[in-house]
C-alpha cells in the first residue's frame, strides 16, 4: 500500500514525507529535482527503514507527470495521494508572460487534476483511498498581488469539492486544507501579518486525521476565523486593503 506525495522535496511536502515515513508508511515521492528526492529518500530509508521510492518529474508538464506516475505504480494498490505542490512567481500582478502564467496554473492546479484523472479509476476500483489537496489563504479573496496563483488555488478548491461530491458514496476520503502562513521557502523573507507555522506541526495535524478529515479545513485552525472575517469584508472596504 503506497502513499503518493506530489511536491515532496521541500516545505510541507518534505515534512509530510518525514512524518509518514516515521509512521512506517511506504512512500512514492514526486518532485522536480532528482537530487532533492534522492537525498530525502535515503534519509527516510536510513532512519525509518521504510520503502521510499521517488519520481523526478516537473509538475509543469502535467500530462507527462500523470502518465509517468501512473506507470510507476501500475498494478499497485494506492492508499492515498497528497498534493502539497505549488509555486508562486514574483510579479504575479496580471502582467506575467504567458509561459509563466501556464506554469503557475499547471503546477498549482492542472498537474493535480491530471494525476487524479489517472488515479481516480484506481481508487474507485479499490473502493478506498485518500486524496488530500492543499490550498492557500491567498485564494480566499482575489487580490492584486497573486492574480494567477490565487485563481489556480481557488480552482483547486472547487476541484476538490467536485471530487468529494463525485465520490461521496464510493468509500474515498477527500480532504482539502486551506493553509495559512507556513515557514517555508515561499514565505521566507516576506513581511507577514501573523507568524508562520512550522511545516512539521502542520504535517503532524494532517497525518493525525489522514483517513477521516473529509471536507475543507484550515491550518493553522485560527485561519478559519480570519478567512470568515475576510470573506465578510464588504467590497468598498476590501478594495482599500493592501496585503
Amino acid at each position: 500500500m503506497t502513499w503518493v506525495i506530489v511536491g515532496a522535496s521541500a516545505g510541507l511536502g518534505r515534512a509530510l514525507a518525514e512524518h509518514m515515513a516515521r509512521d512506517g508508511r511506504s512512500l512514492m515521492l514526486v518532485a522536480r529535482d532528482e537530487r532533492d528526492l534522492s537525498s530525502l529518500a535515503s534519509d527516510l530509508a536510513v532512519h525509518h527503514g521504510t520503502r521510499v521510492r521517488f519520481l523526478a518529474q516537473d509538475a509543469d508538464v502535467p500530462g507527462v507527470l500523470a502518465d509517468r506516475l501512473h506507470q510507476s505504480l501500475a498494478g499497485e494498490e494506492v492508499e492515498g495521494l497528497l498534493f502539497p505542490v505549488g509555486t508562486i512567481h514574483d510579479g504575479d500582478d496580471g502582467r506575467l508572460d504567458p509561459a509563466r502564467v501556464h506554469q503557475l496554473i499547471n503546477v498549482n492546479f492542472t498537474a493535480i487534476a491530471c494525476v487524479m484523472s489517472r488515479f481516480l479509476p484506481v481508487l474507485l476500483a479499490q473502493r478506498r483511498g485518500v486524496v488530500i489537496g492543499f490550498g492557500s489563504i491567498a485564494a480566499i479573496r482575489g487580490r492584486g498581488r497573486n492574480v494567477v496563483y490565487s485563481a489556480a488555488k481557488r480552482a483547486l478548491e472547487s476541484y476538490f469539492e467536485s471530487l468529494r461530491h463525485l465520490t461521496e458514496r464510493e468509500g474515498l476520503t477527500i480532504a482539502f486544507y486551506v493553509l495559512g502562513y507556513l515557514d517555508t521557502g515561499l514565505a521566507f523573507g516576506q513581511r507577514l501579518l501573523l507568524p508562520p507555522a512550522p511545516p512539521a506541526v502542520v504535517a503532524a495535524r494532517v497525518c493525525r486525521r489522514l483517513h477521516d478529515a473529509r471536507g475543507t479545513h484550515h491550518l493553522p485552525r485560527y485561519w478559519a476565523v480570519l478567512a470568515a472575517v475576510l470573506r465578510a469584508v464588504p467590497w468598498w472596504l476590501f478594495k482599500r486593503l493592501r496585503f
Partner: protein
Amino acid sequence: MVSFDGGTRLRQGLLRPDRYRELEALPADQPRIVKGGGYSYAAAGFGGGGLVQDARAFNRILAFDPESGLLECEAGTQLGKIFELAAPLGWFLPVQPGYPRITVGGCIAADVHGKNQFRDGTFRRVVRSVRLYHPRHGTILLGCGDPDGAFELTCGGLGLTGHILSARLQLARLAGSRVRVARRRIDRFEDTLPMLLEHAGQADLLYTWHTFTARGEGFGRGFLYDGRFIPDSRRDDSSPPSVVSIDARTRRRLGLQLLNRATTGIFNGAYEVWQAARPQEHETDLFSFLFPVARKVLYFALFGRRGFHEYQMIVRGDTFGDLARALKAYLARHRIPVTLASCKLFAGSTRYVRFDGAGLCLALDFPRGEPGTRFAAFLDGLMCELRGIPNIVKDSRLPREVVAACYPDYAAFREALRVYDPARIYRSEVSERLDL
C-alpha cells in the same frame, strides 16, 4: 546577524535555500558565504558584503553502513542527528564539539577538535571525502588522499572554498554507552601540562578547569577530568534529553552582564566548592559526555546582550611556563573576570589556517568590554611572542596582523585560495578582516 560571542553584528541579505537548484540559481560572480548552525564565535558564516546562504535545510543522512561505520550526510546535518542514528547501533563520531546543533559543514570548515585532540586529532581525521559546490568548479568530489588538493584547503578553510554539500565520515565503535569521569586536583597552574601528559594516551575525554580569579599561590588551581568509556556498559534507551537553544538571541533575553568583576570570583569559588564536594569519580550518560554544552545555556546567558570573549590558543610545551607566568602577572595587575579557564592537550602540526599543532590548548572566557578587549590584545601580543596559535573561529576581533604572525602558512593559504578561486566569491567577515 550576530556572531556567537556577540562581537560582530551586521545586517545582511539572507537566503534559505531548501532545494539543490536554488544553490545554483545565484549569478556565478555573486559574492556569498554559507551559514551552518551559526555557532562560530567569529562571523565565519556571514559578513563579507555578499549574500548569506543558510544551509540548514540540507540536513539529510545519505547513507550509513552499520558494519563499517561509514556515514554520508549533507553538510547541514547536525551532530545530534548523527548521534541519534548511530549511537543505538554502537557508533559515534570520535571527534566532535560539545553542542548537538553544530553542523557537519561547520565542523569541516573550522576543522574542530573534540574530547581528546591529542589522541584523536581534529575533525579532518574522520572525513573521508567532501562534495563541494563552487560556481567556478561546479560540484566536485574531494578525497582525503590528496595533500595539495582542495580537500586540504576546505578542511579548516573557514568555508571559503565553496559550499560543502555533503561529506563521508568514518565513525568509531562505541566502547561502551556510559563514561566514568575521574577528577584529580591541580594545585598549581604550572602542574597542568605534566598531569595532562600522564593521562593523554588512554583518556576518551581529557580537560582541565582552573580558577583564574584566585590570587597568589592559588592562581590557576583546579581540576583535571579524565573520562573513559565503561566497557560494555548498557545503553540508556530513553530518548536524548532536550537541547536548550544557545545563541545571541537567548543571551539578549537576560540583557544584563551578570558575569562581571563583582560576581565571577563567587561564581568560580562556588563551582570549585561544588566540584570538591562531589565524589572523585562519577558516571555520565553518553549524550552528556558528547554534548556537555547542550543544557548549559545559563552560562552563556549570564554574559548578557553584550556577549563575551573566548580566547583559545595553542602554545608549545616548552613555552607553557612562560605563558603561565605572564598570565599570572597580568591578572594580578588587572582584575579581569575570567569565567572559564580550561586546558586540553594537542598533538599534530599546523597547516594553512587550521587550529592544530602540538602543545597545550588553553581557552579563556571573559566578559566583553573595555578591560576584556585590553586583555585580548595582551593575549595577542603573548601569542606573537611565544609563537602560539590563536583560534580564528573563537574570536570575532582577532586582528589580521596577529594571524599573519602566528600562523606560519597564513600567506600560503591566502595564495592557494586565490589560485583556486581568483574571484574569491566566498567571503565572510572573517575572511575580509583577515584579508584572506
